[in-house]
């Protein structure tokens, strides 16, 4: 039954997406598309960290794998959907390799290893500059359709992909495997007693979470019409993690909040700093940094005060409203 419900909501989401993209200005469509790309990655990371309890500081690097595959496929073959698929497959393979190593590590060790991955992937693009063209990166060519504004088309493609990812992941979460993942997170010994193969579950979780991250990276490359290592720095990996923590760990809706924050908060603080016309010097220093500071502080406060993130706040409020209504 859940499958049917997921299908219905995905279809509704698709119709809604189509309607909204027709109304939005190009720049807002571009932002919507960016949010959709981030959503793929945050949803994947939510599966890994929230449901399976494994930390990854390297999902930005996995996005880079998807993005570069996208560039190669797009410049070589040029079929957009095939390229997106190939990007996912390549990232899945890399995710499997990291996952095998990760399944043997816990807590800070896993964090440290994935951190090293995050720093190493940009180094690959520089070391093998003949292939990846170093920091300048590669163009991602495509032919936009004649009938649509390019940003509308991008928003539709990215939004559609994100919907598909959410649909598939929602089904994974409610499946038997989803329960196994949570069992491993909560108590490895108990999970083992219940007949769950812990290491296999962990590797699979990593794989399942890598694929959408790769798709997200490919979409980012598609939106920017190019790919360069600077887009996939350590900061991106940290951003993704903090997005899902602030959004609400272990909850796909939290991933949506997280992706929304990643796009909206820098934009909001930028408009805020633009308001400060007194000193362009100060405005320049605040620009970007203010968003980061707010992110960082929120992350700490959320962890200390409301480990459930934004989504738990929303749940609490809606719960209260519903309760109030019942009393009436």
């Amino acid at each position, binding site marked *: 039954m859940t499958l049917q419900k997921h299908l219905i909501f995905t279809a509704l989401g698709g119709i*809604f997406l189509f309607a909204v993209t027709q109304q939005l200005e190009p*720049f807002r469509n571009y932002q919507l598309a960016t949010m959709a790309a981030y959503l793929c990655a945050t949803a994947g990371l939510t599966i890994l960290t929230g449901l399976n309890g494994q930390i990854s500081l390297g999902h930005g690097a996995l996005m880079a794998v998807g993005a570069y595959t996208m560039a190669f496929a797009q410049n070589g073959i040029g079929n957009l959907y095939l390229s997106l698929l190939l990007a996912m497959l390549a990232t899945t393979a890399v995710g499997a390799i990291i996952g095998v190593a990760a399944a043997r590590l816990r807590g800070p060790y896993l964090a440290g290893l994935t951190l090293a991955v995050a720093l190493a992937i940009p180094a690959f693009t520089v070391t093998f500059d003949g292939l990846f063209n170093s920091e300048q990166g590669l163009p991602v060519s495509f032919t936009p359709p004649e009938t649509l504004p390019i940003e509308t088309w991008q928003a539709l493609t990215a939004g559609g992909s994100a919907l598909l990812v959410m649909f598939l992941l929602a089904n994974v979460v409610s499946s038997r495997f989803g329960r196994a993942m949570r069992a491993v997170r909560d108590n490895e010994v108990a999970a083992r007693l219940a007949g769950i193969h812990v290491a296999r579950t962990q590797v699979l979780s990593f794989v399942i979470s890598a694929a959408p991250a790769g798709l997200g990276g490919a979409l980012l490359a598609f939106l920017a019409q190019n790919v360069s290592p*600077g887009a996939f720095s350590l900061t991106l990996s940290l951003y993704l993690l903090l997005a899902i923590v602030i959004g609400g760990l272990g909850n796909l809706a939290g991933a949506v909040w997280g992706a929304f924050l990643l796009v909206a908060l820098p934009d909001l603080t930028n408009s805020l700093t633009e308001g400060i016309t007194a000193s362009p010097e100060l405005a320049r220093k605040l620009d970007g940094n203010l968003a980061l500071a707010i992110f960082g502080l929120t992350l700490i406060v959320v962890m200390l005060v409301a480990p459930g993130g934004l989504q738990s706040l929303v749940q609490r409020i809606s719960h209260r409203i519903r309760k109030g209504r019942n009393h009436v």
Partner: protein
Amino acid sequence: MYRTFRRGMIIIAASALLAACSSGGGGQPAAPKGDSTGVTATEILVGTHQPLTGPAAAGYSEISPATKAYFDFVNAAGGINGRKITYKVMDDGYNPANTQTVVRQLVLQDKVFAILNGLGTPTHTNVLDFLKTNKVPDLFVASGSRSWDQPQKYPHTFAYNPDYTVEGKILANHIKENFAGKKVCYMGQDDDFGRDELAGLEKVLGASGIVERQKYVTSNPDVGPQIGALKTAACEVVVLATVPGFTALSIGTAARLAFKPQWVVSNVGSDYPTLAKQLGANKGLLEGMLAVSYLPSPIDMSDPWTAMFKKIHDQYNGKAPFNGNAIYGLSVGYLFVQALVAAGKDLTREGIIAAIEKGGFKGPGIAPLRYAKDDHSGYGGQRMTKISADVQSYFGKVFETDSEGGPVIEFTGERPAPPTSSIPS
């Protein structure tokens, strides 16, 4: 679980609606004769992307304030055809990924008339296609990559700097005439900047004329291995295609290794005050460094253009140092105003591109500006400079050449005196 999924959908919907609400009114009503986005009766909005922070900020972050200072000066005098120029500077940190975001913001959200002097080879290369799709004039790119001069492929893009191949040829010409028989080596940025410069060197010296080739990336400040390799190859003349921070780093690192070749540096990485500031107590290492330039020397007050710029600089950008970066920024501002004047009263995107393609701009530069219908390259020549006794000054002839196999020849064209109002008319 479907409940959380449904919530997810609601959030997507809500945020999309939010975006829709905040997006405001519709597009610009198109002017009858052409695209006048960013132009009103009283204002022209132009944008740029600059490395105000990050590894290339040393020196380059001083350019856009100088351009702005020139616009402030022009605005104070009433603007051009009654329109004041607003210059919106966005920081991209010399990171190509940031560039494409900030340029989209400038074009799609702020609706600028043109992108002016966007800085950097790796950064700007990645927005060429986007600017083309949106038909945005992409004027006077602050870099010497040959990519800017492709009128067929990118009809809206115009270069400013002499391209790096032209520069490489002029540097190599000097090396050939003055350092014959010495071991010449090269170290450059791992992108089109370095590659174009190396191509120029090889056109004059031959591929075998370069003994050792090394490259660096701006994200990695450890150039020890590269400099070590140059030393091992016993290089006597080293050509640097580097941004200022990495010129300083290379020369400083070489001193650490007790390696002191003749340095020959690309114009974009050679401003003496910038390098001296980076090297601090070690600035003595810069003595004897050779480079090229094509704009008025910031220390030569007998040059009427320098004197003119200095006056504007002191009034509108007084706190910043008056160095090569300031001259560069002011000169770009001057050229843009020249183009605005040439485009006339009914300013459109098509109009300004046609005006620039008509060419004929003369100004602060000592070499020719080449704009024409089939030529979007900028300055076409340079003159050697040398640092001696704490002073970087011009010497020798002004040379011009093309970016193909043509010879390096002397340029003898005249430079006009600056207009008395300091504003082109």
